[in-house]
């Protein structure tokens, strides 16, 4: 009886090890998302779109295609448009949010957190009249007729029959692979590089309630994403009732203009706003407890130090050389 059992198991293993007849088994190479210090272990990778090296590679090619994401998301500007990316110039309803460490954003995408997944975000960007404004069936048709793409889709998804759902999946995989965790501040956390005294003072201001009090919404230290990915009413306008997502501050020096409407073109203007430009409204976030003083009231020296710290969050490892 025992021999019969062992024989059955061996037979089953032999059957399972055989390749399907007439078709090569589809075995893409898993893509391992890194686990930087103080990054979450939870991510937003959907079960039906696991990251693979082939998927990420395909996503990158699609991202940089003509009339695709890179039309506005310029690599040299940390995947944003650059200083000219104002609402007037872009004609969009909002400025861009950083494509930085989005694999760990589990609370919705967009300034209002209105988009659930990166896959959905790709579709939204492709079809929005103020963004790519493409006919997805035409996109698929063009890719299907190209020489290189059917083979790339086959390697990534096991089929050379292209659908827009697969386009969404591939680009989402590429965006998830954009991991920024090699800034001066990261190296400081790992004991590899020292911050200057001004940068350290800036970090102290960043993380103290009596200082600039940035950390409640923008993380820092034990939250190395430098955002909670939650929405807040930060007192941009008097009687404003709207809440917007706190963006990551990683690469903040490279991602002007700032705020959902791009009203600030420099980091200095942003710091000035939080120092003395915060507007009162009944709906302001309770975390904006300096509102009655108009902000956190930083001295010129403190502003310089805070900016010095923010500049330590710049990571050019995925960007072209300056």
């Amino acid at each position, binding site marked *: 009886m025992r021999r019969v059992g062992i024989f059955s198991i061996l037979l089953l293993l032999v059957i399972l090890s055989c390749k399907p007849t007439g078709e090569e088994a589809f075995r893409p190479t898993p893509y391992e998302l890194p686990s930087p210090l103080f990054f*979450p272990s939870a991510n937003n990778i959907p079960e039906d779109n696991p990251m693979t090296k082939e998927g990420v590679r395909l996503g990158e090619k699609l991202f940089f295609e003509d009339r695709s994401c890179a039309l506005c998301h310029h690599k040299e500007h940390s995947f944003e448009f650059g200083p000219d990316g104002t609402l007037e110039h872009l004609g969009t309803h909002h400025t861009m949010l950083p494509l930085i460490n989005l694999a760990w954003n589990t609370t919705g995408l967009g300034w209002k957190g209105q988009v659930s997944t990166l896959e959905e975000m790709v579709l939204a960007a492709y079809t929005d009249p103020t963004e790519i404004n493409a006919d997805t069936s035409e996109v698929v048709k063009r890719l299907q007729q190209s020489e290189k793409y059917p083979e790339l889709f086959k390697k990534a998804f096991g089929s050379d029959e292209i659908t827009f759902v697969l386009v969404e999946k591939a680009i989402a995989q590429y965006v998830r692979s954009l991991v920024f965790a090699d800034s001066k501040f990261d190296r400081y956390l790992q004991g590899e590089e020292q911050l200057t005294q001004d940068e350290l003072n800036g970090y102290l201001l960043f993380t*103290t309630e009596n200082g600039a009090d940035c950390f409640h919404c923008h993380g820092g230290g*034990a939250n190395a994403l430098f955002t909670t990915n939650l929405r807040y009413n930060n007192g941009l306008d008097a009687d404003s009732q709207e809440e917007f997502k706190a963006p990551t501050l990683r690469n903040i020096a490279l991602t002007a203009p700032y705020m959902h409407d791009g009203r600030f073109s420099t980091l200095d203007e942003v710091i000035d706003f939080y120092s003395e430009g915060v507007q009162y409204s009944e709906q302001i976030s309770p975390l904006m*407890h300096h*509102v009655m003083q108009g902000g956190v009231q930083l001295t010129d020296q403190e502003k310089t130090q805070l900016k010095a710290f923010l500049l330590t969050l710049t990571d050019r490892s995925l960007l072209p050389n300056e």
Partner: protein
Amino acid sequence: MFILAMTVSCKSPKGNGSLDMQIGYSINEKPLTCDTMVYHNAAGNTFLINEIQWFLSNMQLCDEQGRCVDLGDVFYLDTNIPESHFLHINSLPVGIYKKLRFTFGLCDADNTTGRFSNPPERDMFWPEPLGGGYHYMKLNGKYIDNDGILVPMNIHLGRGQNADLNEFYDNSFSVEIPIDLKITESGDSHLTLTMNIDNWFCNPHVYDFNTYGSAIMQNQEAQNILKENGNDVFNATTSEPMKTISEIGQELFKKAAPKPHFMTWENFKNTLSNITKTNKRP
């Protein structure tokens, strides 16, 4: 008595049972309603509460002989997450328990930076320059200040520090509450733990928002007052029927009907509007 002693002294001679536990909030003698209701404290402050997020740790049930059963290391409670207030605890030795014991917040030994990598617990982090670890509690809301203006109010408790940020204080505290809880194999035992919010602001110290302002993470005097006031903030009962998540959701999320003696949000705003007309804000 002998039989009872045998019951609790032996290792579950009659098997194990389970416990359904609910954590709730009371304020001004009513269940808390976030965002909409207006409350008053002993100092005469008028305020509303937007959210409460806090840690409860090292929870134990103890019998008359002082032998205790661990219920879990750390629990995160968040009024934005109603389901976080319902705990189902399995494998409790059958018996009679006389004490609920836990730590409010996280004691220094448990309060290590990086312990929680994922939200929402991660977002409770307490910055390293202020001592590190995690907030024990964030109670966020707004109050009417001395000028009659509705201003932010944050009761953020955690590790304290001196002015030079080179000496730190463990502000967590132990809570022991007498109970009379019978755990049976039938598994229908329940326990309700209630945070009485009023008591944070009185006994032995009257806590006035106007005195301590909106931000107290760097104010050890305020931290210590709230720690000492925490002595009677919690109570527990086994007699009340359990509420459903939906019911507690109604209490926490704006759906509860305004109580007659409370000021509604609309009335509050009208009152506020009258006040602010004569108090120009800066």
